[in-house]
């Protein structure tokens, strides 16, 4: 009895004797590892020759979890079979109870948690992790911090705390941060309460972070942290799955749940962080992280989770200098070179004059002569023939790379695929053993423009004896995710390749945005007007261009479909307002467009009918003398542009005058303006032609004024 009481005190929790539950979300709910994940769930992909989920379970076991639920969606049978055959299921080996929960309908983390809620499996605070965590952290302190908030006697009691996010301190450019998915956590340094969460995808580039002023009413001091690695390890209260059920539109744990809770006035719940700076924690959610975490393991940052501690019972690795790990029965030829950070699984053979650096090679692989393997991940039973070069790529089980083939950076070759001989796979090629399904599992959107640029890729030659199908990165099901965000997160991705951007103009601003000054509200920082950067002007100009293009389309539609002037005017107004465009821009577009409607084979009658109908449209976007002068300038320039149009100028001028679109004063002002004389020789000629008309107008006016005098 006394020991029991002591235990209670140590845990300081009334339900200390409750089991510690943990939930592993094994599915990634995205297609980052396609085509590999088409055949094997992500959590079973080997990392340093050990299935990924082993690291996660090990981490939970270290932290004292007793009951683990693995929520499996894709390939649930494989996961179940794996767990049943693993050491964790052997009765005497551990006190850990693992249960695989089938949740075949889930499409997101939110769905998985709703499923959990529906099944009522969770009875206490639990640890929520993805099936991809690699960590040597002990969660006891974080758990204690989480529990102490629930107690009324502790210093930082907060009964509304529902979650503690365990984060790892790194730096802003740390390779373990998911590229393209970095986020800023805003934390109250005195209590570790998270007060704001901001995801920062690089494309489209987020320029500003806004923090609500209300936060400062409760927290005098907050800290913005852009240096945290988010391994997605959360200690959650029982309410969390229920909250997901209540808010059925929440899909993501961070961008929906955390943001939702933090910004909600109604829920009144709080989320805390636990920031660790002495242990290792990272997750593998994309191939870039697969690379960086594998390296960290080889370089022993994750100690004691390193190859020679043999997470899997069957493994026996030997560690030698230069971070080289060798399994049993490895046969290395005399002349081969094995350099830094290499792991070689048992039964593998490396041929003469081959070189292996910074790589992981699985079991029973056969590597021929004169092969160069650099930063690559070869899984089990891979056959590499002579003269092959592989750079920073993943080659899955049973794949065969035939002689003299090269794989450039970032290639992924799936199970059992054969490539070669003598071909070169370009960068970032993905080869699957099955053809890519038309709509893969997560793609409920129709594939639209983001494929266009990639179609060329499918012409890649896999060689005479090659088997396999080229896969194209289709992107996530997130409708608002820029495909470029996925690219930067893939293995060995070189950002240089991004500047061959698909969208025009995109590369030009990405380079200069770094010191971005282009947003306007900070302009008062710089002391005066002349300090305005040209950047904003360029952006503005681009916007105007776009607006004009849309206008053109809308007006040509109006001509083609014989809209009424009112309808066309309405549409133009709508466009103008949504794009915040000016009337000047509108006139720049519609005046030439209307003139172009004139049938040049019979100019006179045609211009009359055209202007009779559409002249009033010009009138609708012309307000005041200045605008009328502007219209005349446009007309002059446009008619001067092409010789056939020269003869239209005077009739148009006359007709516009008759329709009261332009008045005499405006015509005089246009005629006398310097601009009308400086628009090139043909434009000046048109102006001269108008002299007669001007004279006639002047006389008419004089007559008018004479009459007035009388």
């Amino acid at each position, binding site marked *: 009895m006394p020991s029991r009481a002591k235990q209670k005190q140590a845990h300081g929790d009334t339900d200390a004797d409750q089991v510690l539950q943990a939930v592993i979300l094994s599915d990634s709910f995205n297609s980052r590892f396609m085509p590999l994940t088409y055949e094997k769930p992500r959590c079973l992909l080997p990392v340093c020759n050990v299935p990924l989920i082993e690291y996660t379970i090990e981490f939970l076991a270290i932290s004292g979890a007793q009951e683990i639920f693995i929520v499996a969606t894709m390939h649930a049978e494989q996961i179940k079979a794996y767990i049943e055959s693993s050491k964790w299921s052997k009765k005497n080996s551990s006190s850990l109870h693992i249960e695989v929960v089938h949740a075949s309908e889930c499409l997101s983390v939110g769905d998985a948690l709703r499923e959990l809620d529906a099944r009522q499996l969770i009875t206490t605070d639990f640890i929520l992790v993805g099936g991809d965590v690699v960590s040597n952290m002990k969660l006891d302190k974080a758990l204690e911090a989480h529990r102490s908030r629930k107690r009324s006697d502790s210093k930082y009691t907060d009964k509304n705390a529902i979650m503690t996010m365990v984060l790892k301190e790194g730096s802003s450019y740390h390779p373990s941060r998911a590229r393209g998915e970095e986020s800023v956590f805003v934390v109250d340094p005195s209590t570790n309460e998270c007060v704001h969460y901001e995801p920062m995808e690089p494309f489209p580039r987020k320029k500003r972070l806004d923090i609500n002023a209300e936060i400062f009413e409760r927290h005098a001091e907050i800290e913005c942290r852009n240096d945290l690695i988010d391994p997605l390890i959360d200690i959650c209260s029982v309410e969390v799955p229920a909250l997901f059920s209540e808010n059925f539109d929440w899909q993501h744990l961070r961008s929906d749940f955390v943001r939702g809770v933090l910004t909600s006035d109604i829920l009144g719940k709080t989320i805390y962080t636990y920031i660790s700076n002495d242990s290792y924690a990272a997750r593998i959610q994309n191939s870039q992280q697969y690379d960086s975490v594998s390296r960290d393991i080889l370089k022993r940052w994750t100690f004691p989770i390193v190859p020679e501690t043999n997470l899997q019972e069957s493994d026996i690795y030997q560690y030698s200098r230069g971070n080289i790990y060798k399994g049993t029965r490895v046969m290395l030829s005399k002349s081969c070179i094995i350099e830094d950070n290499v792991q070689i699984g048992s039964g593998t053979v490396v041929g003469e004059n081959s070189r292996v650096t910074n790589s992981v090679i699985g079991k029973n692989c056969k590597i021929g002569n004169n092969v160069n393997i650099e930063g690559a991940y070869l899984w089990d039973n891979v056959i590499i023939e002579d003269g092959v070069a592989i750079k920073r790529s993943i080659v899955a089980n049973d794949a065969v790379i035939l002689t003299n083939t090269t794989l450039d950076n970032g290639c992924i070759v799936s199970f059992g695929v054969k490539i070669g001989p003598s071909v070169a796979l370009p960068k970032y090629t993905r080869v699957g053993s099955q053809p890519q399904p038309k709509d893969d599992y997560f793609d409920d959107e129709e594939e639209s423009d983001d494929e266009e640029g990639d179609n060329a890729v499918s012409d890649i030659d896999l060689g005479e004896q090659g088997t396999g199908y080229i896969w194209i990165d289709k992107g996530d099901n997130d409708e608002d995710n820029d495909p470029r965000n996925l690219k930067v997160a893939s293995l060995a991705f070189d950002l240089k390749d991004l500047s061959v951007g698909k969208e025009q103009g995109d590369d030009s601003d990405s380079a200069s945005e770094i*010191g971005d000054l282009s947003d306007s*509200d900070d302009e008062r920082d710089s002391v005066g007007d002349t300090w305005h950067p040209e950047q904003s002007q360029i952006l503005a100009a681009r916007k105007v261009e776009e607006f004009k293009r849309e206008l053109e389309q809308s007006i040509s539609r109006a001509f083609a479909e014989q809209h009424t002037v009112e309808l066309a005017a309405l549409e133009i107004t709508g466009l103008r307002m949504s794009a915040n465009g000016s009337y000047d821009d509108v006139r720049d577009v519609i005046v030439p467009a209307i003139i172009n409607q004139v049938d040049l084979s019979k100019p006179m009658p045609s211009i009359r009918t055209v202007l009779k109908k559409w002249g009033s449209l010009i009138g609708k976007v012309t307000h005041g003398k200045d605008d009328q002068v502007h219209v005349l300038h446009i007309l002059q320039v446009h008619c001067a542009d092409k010789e056939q149009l020269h003869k239209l100028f005077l009739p148009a001028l006359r007709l516009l005058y008759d329709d009261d679109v332009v008045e005499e004063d405006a015509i005089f002002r246009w005629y006398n303006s310097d601009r009308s004389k400086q628009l090139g020789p043909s434009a000046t000629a048109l102006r001269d032609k108008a002299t007669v008309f001007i004279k006639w107008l002047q006389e008419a006016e004089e007559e008018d004024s004479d009459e007035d005098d009388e």
Partner: protein
Amino acid sequence: MGLLEKPKQQQKLQEFQAIILAGYGSSNRLYPITEDDNIPKALLPVANKPLISYTLDWLEKAGITDAFVLTQSMGNAQQKIAGYLARGYQGNVHCNLIGVDEDFGTADAIRSISDRITTDFIVLPCDLHCEMIPREFLDHHRINNPTMTGLFYEPPKGEKGSGKEDELAQYIGIDTAESRLVHIADCDSSEDGDLSLRMSLLWRFPRVKFHVNLLDAHVYIFQHWVLDLIKAKEKISSIRQDLVPLIVKCQYQRKLVENEDMDAALEDPLDTALSLSTVYDEFDENLLNEHDPYRSNFKSNIKVNTVIYRDGYCGRANTIAKYSEMNRLASKQGLSIRRVAETAEVTQKSQIGNDSLVGEYTKIAEKSSVKRSIIGAHCVIGKNVKIANSIIMDHVVLEDFVKLDGCIVCNNAKVLEGSSLTKCEVAGGYIVERKTEENGQKLVGFREAI
């Protein structure tokens, strides 16, 4: 004036020159006590010593012996300060009093004397009273050698309420790793008062603490080249509004640095030397990341450091409330200062609290009581007068049965018999009629209201 008295000190090589902004750029938040017929802000008495003497004492403690005192040339402020510096001031700081056009901003004023500044310089307000040991602040600058070092303080708790009304809170962002000042903005500068940050800031400084409870002491140390900046850019008018934000932003905004040619101004001579060396392998890190759209290695040579003082009192007398607060603290119980001047005549039957001060030659008649108040020199105080929480300046006459609570009575004012004033400010020379009862008023003569 001061020039003749201490000529030797100028020979010494100075590390810092000080610029004191005396009654400068201040709004009329101290109205009416700084009007022309009373005394300029720099000379307002705090525990019967002029405000500026606290700043000068602080400088002396810092070992700075050379100061320019800038004041506006309009009105008689310059004359009065000159008088004080020549005759009243006892310390060892050699002061140069300079009158400046009153329309000048603070940076304009510095520009006008830029040719007389030859070292790094420290800019201070005249209304600062800070218990911080100045060496700590200067050492911070010496160690880190930044472009600028600024001093911030947490206002005392009690002051918070009053501070909020008249001083706008600022968002102050300080980098955790190097305590660099990376963001400074008024709380209401964006539309709804939200804190709006550039992402480039967070990429350059991943850990930034944001405070709203810190106040700017307006004490800055600048490297000498900042003068060139001020000279080159006529648009910089105010230190607080133009210069400081500009320098702060140049720490992480490459475009701004390029647009402003800031880097040319401070090329590191060592870098130049290195690039000329024949063994130096030119390896430009920036080239590596040229194509990287969101990872820049932009490193500005500009650094702004901060010191946050939290251990004791620090405050500025820039509002009536803060001025009163400063007086209270300067005369609070338990300080070992002489409470009643030797020359003062206080009748036995009057009570002077041990939290009050009485100035020289002041007469206090019987049955009067003084609590938590400061009475200046040459005052005449009648019978049965009750003074609490007040500041009475010099040559003030309080007749019998006058009651004052929370008031400030300026020089030469008279409060006639039987008046009772609560939380009032009485302007210089004003006469409060008999039996006046007022609460929360500013009692000012008509001509001033114009």
